[in-house]
């Protein structure tokens, strides 16, 4: 009897282990399928011309340079907006607000909820708030009704993305601030440093790797989002590159959406579509890799100390 019971337990353990392995295998298989499919179908597209040319002949030929340019510009503007805002908020929450104050707790809950809002909602918010309210307001009160800012534009799209990625920056910055030993803060204050000096000279430098990681995560999240920019600035096709903040722009993710759903000749765009997906994938991988590299380099430098 004993032997049998032990045997049953062993079998259960064996089955459970098998389940975990099977689940992992499914994930790996999915990843290989997705990436493999894209690389196989997309790699022959990758030529110099594909990167530097604009789409031609109803997107069935040419390249995707405007979309790459637009993506980079969009993400750059977004970073300029989101990093200072997110870092300042995190500094307030962690360094100035009392640790258990109701306000701080409320803000944290709000930030957490912001992260859970579907991205299409941000798109509509951007349309209503940035374009109609702010942009329209500028046009009405400063430009006397001439439409310059109250229309989809790269500035509004990047600000919308900034709102979307704000939680990423706030949470990772707060984590980084939490990792700064209180010993350092106390030592700085005990040497006559003010709170501001302590934050500027001790706390923030020590948090740079965490802040940078958060920023790059935000960038790679922002670069992959389509819904928030659909209404706020991304264009189906543009014969020129955006040069002003209120220009529209082309973007990789949106370009993929457009080619796969809106194109008059879906079969004809397929090779280019695969190529574009591959480029977006590579861009995201490279960004993440960059984040990891920068972070580990700063950590090593910190260990060796300045």
């Amino acid at each position, binding site marked *: 009897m004993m032997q049998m019971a032990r045997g049953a337990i062993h079998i259960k353990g064996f089955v459970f282990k098998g389940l975990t392995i099977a689940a992992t295998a499914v994930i790996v298989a999915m990843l290989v399928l997705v990436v493999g499919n894209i690389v196989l179908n997309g790699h022959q597209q990758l030529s110099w011309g594909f990167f530097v040319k604009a789409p031609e002949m109803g997107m069935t030929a040419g390249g995707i340079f405007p979309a790459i340019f637009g993506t980079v510009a969009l993400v750059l503007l977004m970073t300029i907006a989101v990093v200072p805002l997110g870092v300042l908020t995190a500094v307030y929450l962690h360094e100035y607000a*009392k*640790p*258990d104050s109701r306000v701080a707790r409320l803000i944290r809950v709000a930030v957490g909820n912001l992260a859970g809002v579907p991205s299409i909602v941000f798109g509509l918010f951007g349309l209503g708030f940035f374009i109609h309210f702010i942009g329209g307001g500028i046009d009405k009160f400063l430009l006397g009704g001439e439409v310059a800012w109250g229309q989809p534009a790269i500035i509004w799209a990047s600000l919308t993305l900034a709102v979307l990625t704000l939680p990423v920056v706030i949470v990772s910055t707060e984590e980084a601030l939490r990792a700064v*030993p209180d*010993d*350092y*803060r*106390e*030592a*700085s*204050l*005990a*040497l*006559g*440093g*003010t*709170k501001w*000096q302590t934050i500027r*000279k*001790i706390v923030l430098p*020590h948090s740079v790797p965490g802040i940078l990681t958060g920023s790059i995560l935000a960038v790679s999240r922002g670069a992959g989002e389509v819904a928030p920019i659909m209404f706020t600035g991304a264009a189906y096709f543009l014969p020129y590159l955006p040069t002003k903040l209120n220009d529209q722009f082309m973007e990789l993710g949106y370009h993929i959406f457009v080619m796969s759903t809106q194109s008059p000749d879906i079969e004809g765009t397929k090779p280019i579509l695969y190529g574009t997906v591959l480029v977006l994938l590579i861009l995201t991988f490279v960004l993440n890799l960059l984040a990891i590299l920068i972070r580990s380099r700063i950590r090593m430098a*910190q*260990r*060796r*100390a*300045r």
Partner: protein
Amino acid sequence: MKPAKDKVMSTAEDEKESTDMLEEQRSSGEKTGMPPTAEKNRGSDRTKMSVEHLNFYYGETLALKDVNLSIRENHITGLIGPSGCGKSTFLRTLNRMNDIIPRTRLEGRVLLDGTDIYQQNIDLSVLRRRVGMVFQKSNPFPKSIFENVAYGLKVGGLRDRTALEEKVEKALKDAALWDEVRDKLHTSALQLSGGQQQRVCIARALAIQPEVILMDEPASALDPISTAKIEELIQDLKKDYTIVIVTHNMQQAARASDYTAFFLLGEVVEFDETSNIFTNPKDKRTEDYVTGRFG
């Protein structure tokens, strides 16, 4: 720093007095008209800090009960007592480091050269430049040795490179560390040994030339040789600084300090010259503690 709005002021008679009061005092110490030697000699019986009817609360818990102490200039005052008796808390009331702990409250007065450091409008940066501190766990910044020692000077507004270099060198010499680190001032302080790191922290505190130095068990985490070096150093510092030191180690207190206060459950049981505390205690509890019967 936040203003000490939740501190209860008992007899803050000079509430209108401005922030500059501490600063003025600091500079006027040097121009009292007396030659420096006379100042030194007179300093030996002078009270540098005095604590009157001090109560301290963490939330609702009373951590210090009616503490009265006076700290003599250019002497070493040792604080002994079992863990949790409030000696570290007391030490941190002397430069208002407890202000950064939420939900704490203080009653009574702490005077530095006659000025209540808990009155309103006290500039905490100035106070802490006059009353420096060395912590139990050595906590050099993850910066170079030079940057560590120069930190207090820089946040105090000193920019001149030559002056910084001179002061850093002097502080490291005073902390008996110069010969060991003179060739590697720009390497990380974290690469030094534990004892050297603690001396960097002492040098860092000395660099801003405080008048009082608070030390919270500065040698507790160190090996015997480093401990001996730090103890020797503290004796040397006595001629220029007033020192208050918390210690767990009875022999260290007996060897190092001129006056000793015995803390128990937030109260000062006995405060006297060190020799009296250790050889002729008046209170039974002090005797039990110093003879090792508990604690």
